[in-house]
Every structure is written in structure tokens, then in C-alpha cells.
């Protein structure tokens, strides 16, 4: 158990500032995720309403975005802008938008046309159809997108630490640079915990808001 005690000691030491770096990490990730959710939702709904051409563009851009390594993306953004909280948030935001956008788009498009037709027939306006029928039905898929983004953003925020902005990656780097296993793990363990927490919390919310009849059938990832 002495390694566990050493890791805890390293995490709490004022030099490492484990709690402070955790807070920075969470602030970076939460800000980026919040902005990405807003933008992804808005753009996704917009694309679903505009139609096929937009869909092709969105899917192409999102797939291309997926092939740029996140490490390279974050290093590029920080070298073009400057080292700092907001440039880092921008980089994380940029990689967080595609999953939410794509899932919102798919979710809204896949809503049963019968349900939309019926609600129009009941006299709902276009805005009401979107707010009361289409978005609620698309919600499980939208949350799946937010979950993917959250995990991705937390993971990449760790790489932001390597560039020197702050966050738990800073601790990992100092452990690497000084070959101190306990410091290395004092950074790595909280990073893993944050990512797994995000996955569990968003996964739980996703299950809660999915009506029984809508439970997604298992599909292979594409």
C-alpha cells in the first residue's frame, strides 16, 4: 500500500497542486463541452431542416475531422493562437462539436415522420413540433453524442497540460520528466477517473431519458 500512499502524497503536495490542476482540468473541459453542446445542437437542427446537401457536407467534415489526431489539433491551435485558457477551450470545443452535431442531425432526421405529421395535424407550429416532438424523440441520440464529446474533451484536456496551459496533464508530464512514478500516477489516475465518471454519468442520463420503446437496437459502429 505504500505506492498508494506515495501517490496520494504526491497528489496533495503543494508543488504538484493536484486539486488545483483537477479544478483547471474540469473548468477547461466543462466550458468546452458547454459551448460544443450549444453549437452542436444548433448546427445539427439547422442541417436537419436544410436537407440533403447540408447532410453530406456535415458528415464529410465530421469524418475528416475525426482523422486529424487530437494531439496535433490541440498543438496546432495553441501554436497559432497563444498559450492560454481560451485558446485551449477553443481547441477542445472544435473537437467536441462533431459528435453532438452528427447525432443531433441523425436523431432529428430519424424521428418517425408519422409522429411529425400527427403533431402538425393537431395544430402545432413548426417551432412546437421541433421543441415538443422532434427534439424529445432525438434526445437519447443527442445525449450519446454529448457523452462521446465529454470523454473526448476530458482526454484531450490532458494533452493540453503537455503544452503547458494547465490541467492534470501537467502532473503527468512532470512525473515523466523526473521519472517519478508516484507523480506520474498522481496525474494519470485522476484523468482516468474523470473520463470514466463522465462516461458513467452521461450514460446514466442517456438511459434515464430513453423511453422503453425507443431503446436502441445494437448496431455495429460505423
Amino acid at each position: 500500500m505504500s505506492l498508494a500512499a506515495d501517490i496520494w502524497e504526491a497528489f496533495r503536495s503543494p508543488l504538484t497542486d493536484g486539486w488545483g490542476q483537477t479544478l483547471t482540468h474540469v473548468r477547461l473541459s466543462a466550458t468546452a463541452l458547454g459551448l460544443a453542446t450549444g453549437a452542436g445542437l444548433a448546427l445539427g437542427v439547422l442541417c436537419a431542416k436544410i436537407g440533403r446537401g447540408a447532410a453530406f457536407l456535415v458528415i464529410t467534415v465530421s469524418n475528416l475531422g475525426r482523422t486529424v489526431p487530437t494531439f496535433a489539433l490541440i498543438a496546432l491551435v495553441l501554436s497559432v493562437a497563444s498559450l492560454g485558457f481560451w485558446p485551449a477551450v477553443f481547441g477542445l470545443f472544435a473537437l467536441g462539436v462533431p459528435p453532438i452535431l452528427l447525432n443531433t442531425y441523425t436523431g432529428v432526421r430519424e424521428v418517425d415522420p408519422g409522429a411529425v405529421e400527427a403533431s402538425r395535424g393537431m395544430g402545432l407550429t413548426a417551432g412546437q413540433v421541433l421543441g415538443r416532438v422532434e427534439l424529445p424523440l432525438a434526445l437519447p441520440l443527442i445525449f450519446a453524442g454529448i457523452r462521446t464529446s465529454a470523454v473526448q474533451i476530458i482526454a484531450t484536456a490532458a494533452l493540453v497540460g503537455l503544452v503547458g496551459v494547465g490541467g492534470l496533464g501537467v502532473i503527468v508530464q512532470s512525473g515523466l520528466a523526473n521519472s517519478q512514478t508516484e507523480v506520474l500516477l498522481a496525474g494519470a489516475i485522476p484523468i482516468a477517473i474523470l473520463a470514466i465518471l463522465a462516461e458513467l454519468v452521461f450514460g446514466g442520463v442517456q438511459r434515464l431519458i430513453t423511453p422503453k420503446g425507443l431503446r436502441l437496437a445494437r448496431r455495429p459502429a460505423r
Partner: protein
Amino acid sequence: MPEVRWEWIADHAEEIQTRSLEHLILVSASTAIGVAIAIPIGIAVRGRRIPFAAATGITGLLYTIPSLAMFAFLLPIFGIGVTPAVVGLVLYSLLLLVRNTAVGLESVPEAVREASRGMGLTPRQVLLRVDLPLALPAIMAGIRLATVSAVGIATVAVLIGGGGLGVLIYSDGIQRALFFTPIVTGAVCATVMAIVLDLLLVGVERLLTPWARARAAVR
């Protein structure tokens, strides 16, 4: 906007080549090992609720661990070098490969399997000649996703001495006061590699499933 210094690229052409090759080896070795481990697991758990949930639960947990943390965990166990890099990349590939194999096998129509049993095929023959070929598109989709994501994750392997294009991004770029040129070079090389490998795998899939093309042509 910082400028790209072409003379740096010209001076380092050899290093860029070496690092790209290292990267390609990291990605292909780990995906190949991942396939060798995941397909048997996928076959073993298909159609069985609890084993399937256990396999996707464990590999899903591994998939959730951020790359920096994963490599940091593997470093004390495997030391510095290519080994922990490959081990980490293999662990990441498992979720996509296991899930797509199992789901692909489950989606083979029961009538087709029944017919092949009726023709006297042994269970082993049904698996090799019917199930796996029909599940191939799903399995290949998993391999493509795993490969593309491995190209990205492998850039982080530089931190544990795994080499590859991460050397350009990190050692030559980030650690030298965010020197822009090697970062762009690494980013472009990795992106191009991901796209080319993806297209190559699409080609492989078409070669392996000639019936898909035949069906499209007959129409």
C-alpha cells in the same frame, strides 16, 4: 498565423520519413494484434447476453481511459519504448473490434445458417464459410475505425518513447517553444496516413466480398 518554414521540412526529410514509417509500424502491428485477439473473443461472446455485456463492458472501460493516462499506467509495467505503445494501442482497438465482430455475427440471418446446416455443414464450416464472410462488412468497419483512431492515439506514444509522428509534434514542436513547422508536418502526415489507410481497407473489403459487387451489378 505562424509561417511554415519549408527549409526545415527539406532539412528533415529523412527524419519525417523515418517517423512516418515508425508510426505506420505502430499502427499496423497493434491493429493486427488487436484483430487476432478480438475476433476469437467476438466469436465466443456472440449471441450470449452476459458474456457479450462483460466483453464490451471491460473493453469499453479500457476505451474510455484517456491515452495519456493509459500510457502513464503502462510505463511502470513495460518501461520506456515501443512495447508499452503497442500494448496501449492494442487495448484501445479491442472494443471496436470485439463489438463489431459479435454484432456482425449476430446479424447473420438465422435462415441462412439453418440452410447451411441442412446442407450438411459442420458448425465449424458454418462459422468459417457462412457466418464470418457475412459478418465481414461489420468486422471491416470495426477494423477501419480502429485503424483510424490508432493513427491518432499513436501520436501520444512519443511520451513513453514509442517514436512515430508524435516525435515531430512533441519533441520537435511543442518542446521547442511550440515550433509550428514540425507540428503542422506531423499533423498533415498523420491525417494523410489515416485517410490512406481507411481507403486501403475499403479496397480490401471490396476484394474480400466480391458477392457484394456482383449483387450491385446484377440489378
